[in-house]
């Protein structure tokens, strides 16, 4: 096993795409010389030069808008917005241009753009800890991907770059900083190129009593919680959604049909986001949902102190408690 961490896998995926396709570019703050604040673009500027891997000023609107123009010129830009929290300064280009140009042009224009960014909680407070996949998912025209492990990160990034649609690719900061050997799954990453299709969830743990669907940084603690629930006689199936758009309702519905119980765990804000959409779509799919529960950040900004953060962000412990409660509902 190569024991790469997640950020290395991302860099490797981008490297392989840049190697096979000259049109792939990386544009953003600190992506070049530094190789990304999380190392997820390491080595790329050395390999491909400072034109294809461009360090920009702190000008996210310029970065995003450049991506639009470059896509129109036939390029496939990867735009790095360092933290997803900063999206508010450039969302206009993302949702009014990148997401809509294909539609507004009646299909004539394509926007094969990856918006690469980091999300998730690591004790950084309200402006550096958000997930916001729900925000992007609400806006038509964007695919929204968030990997949970090194193997998926590499394969999903390859697919995101290869996709002719714009993809918001949210890397979890905690996972970026986790060493591969600390992943209970997906730590073994082949050196060669491979892709994982966008929109296919993964059943990362089989179970019979309860379906736990989640994504990104909460997949690992969900699995850990599930292991502990075995001891309590509750068999939890854990599904890693992998992407919010497309949302793989089929895989979840199929599971819920067997278990009858659905727990959605979401590190993003609870309301008007992933959890309600998934619950609703699973019910709409006519799956047999006897009980469901949502466990997410309870519509609170992420607090500064870790003692406060820990109280509102789903953790192994809180997932365990939520799953147990759901398993007992009658």
């Amino acid at each position, binding site marked *: 096993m190569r024991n790469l961490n997640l950020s290395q896998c991302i860099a490797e995926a981008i490297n392989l795409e840049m190697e096979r396709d000259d049109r792939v570019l990386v544009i953003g703050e600190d992506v070049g010389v530094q190789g990304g604040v999380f190392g997820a673009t390491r080595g790329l500027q050395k390999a491909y030069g400072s034109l294809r891997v461009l360090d920009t*000023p702190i000008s996210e609107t310029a970065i995003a808008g450049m991506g639009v123009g470059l896509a*129109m010129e036939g390029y496939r830009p990867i735009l790095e917005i360092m933290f997803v929290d900063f999206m508010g300064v450039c969302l206009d280009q993302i949702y009014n241009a990148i997401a809509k140009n294909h539609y507004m042009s009646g299909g004539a224009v394509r926007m094969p753009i990856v918006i690469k960014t980091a999300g998730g909680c690591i004790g950084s407070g309200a402006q550096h800890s958000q997930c916001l996949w729900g925000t992007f998912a609400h806006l038509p025209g964007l695919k929204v991907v968030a990997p949970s492990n090194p193997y998926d990160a590499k394969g999903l990034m390859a697919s995101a770059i290869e996709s002719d649609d714009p993809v918001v690719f949210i890397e979890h900061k905690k996972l970026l900083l986790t060493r591969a050997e600390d992943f209970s799954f997906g730590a073994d990453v082949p050196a060669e190129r491979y892709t994982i299709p966008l929109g296919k969830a993964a059943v990362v743990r089989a179970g019979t009593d309860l379906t736990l669907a989640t994504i990104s940084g909460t997949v690992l603690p969900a699995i850990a919680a599930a292991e502990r629930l075995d001891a309590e006689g509750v068999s939890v199936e854990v599904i890693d959604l992998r992407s919010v758009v497309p949302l793989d309702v089929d895989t979840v519905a199929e599971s819920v049909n067997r278990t009858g119980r659905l727990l959605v765990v979401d590190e993003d804000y609870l309301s008007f986001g992933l959890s309600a959409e998934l619950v609703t779509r699973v019910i709409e799919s006519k799956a047999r949902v006897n009980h469901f529960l949502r466990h997410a950040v309870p519509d609170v900004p992420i607090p500064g102190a870790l003692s406060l953060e820990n109280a509102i962000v789903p953790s192994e412990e809180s997932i365990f408690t939520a799953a147990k409660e759901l398993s007992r509902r009658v």
Partner: protein
Amino acid sequence: MTSLLDRYGYMLWMREFELACLEGVPTREIHGELHTGIGQEAIAAGFVGSLRADDALCSTHRNHLHAIAKGVDMRAMLAEIFERETGLCGGYGGHMHLMDPKLKFSATGIVGAGVPVALGHAYAARLKNSDSVAVAVIGDGAVNTGAFHEAMNLAGVLQLPLIVVVENNEWAISVPFGASSPTATVAERASAWAASGVKVDGNDVEKVAAAFDEAVAKARSGGGPSLIEASCYRFRGHFEGDADTYRSQQEKDERRQIDPLTITRARILERALATEEQLVGMETSVRSALREMLAHVRAEPHPLGEHATRHVFVEAGR
């Protein structure tokens, strides 16, 4: 070299095109806020001849004239504006979103948002090691957007072939230029972004053309970005339906006297580049060509509702 007569021809097409658009508003063939460039033709007509197909042009909510200058098919434009299936964007875009990727023409309804897009085109020229350029046309109001600053800044840093033309018609809807600009001109701000800055009389198509051509030549030869401020006046309300009470009747009456078409026409006669009869002939033929175009467009079908969910994604989505 594009002759003055050629430019006048363009201006005629532009004016008649806009007049044709006006017809679709009371008839409710055109919805939303239609913005026309009537009175501002000399600026776009000044672009003609300097740009190639591989140069990019990113425009605004008031985009028809720029599209014509870039060579976008007028009939497809008119059909798009009249919401037909045969439109440039199949009816998906509408009048604020004319897009012709082959000619690298696009427009946006978000003020200022075209400048970063043009920056991307300019960067593509650098990547391709080509001498193509990118033009963003904006209004005076757009100079105050963050998007403008960020894009100008990066163009300055990288010395990219970006030309930003500011159509300074003195108003951003109801807000006069003086209430939104701390400087007397836009052009004088250019050095803040290491760009050349020049202000020209936007009613003088030759002056516009000279300044524009110079900026294009400079950009093509690696000389970096330029900011061209062209003064002009918006003859009509901000959009069709705007009561336009914020501008005094006197101001409007006076300023509409200064019509770039009239000016250009007089100059042509003065220089004997054409006779009165020739000009009338041109005018009549453009007018009737546009009448015909409009009639055709009006006979074309509207896009089918059942197709409205197409084109959200290239690949499978949701």
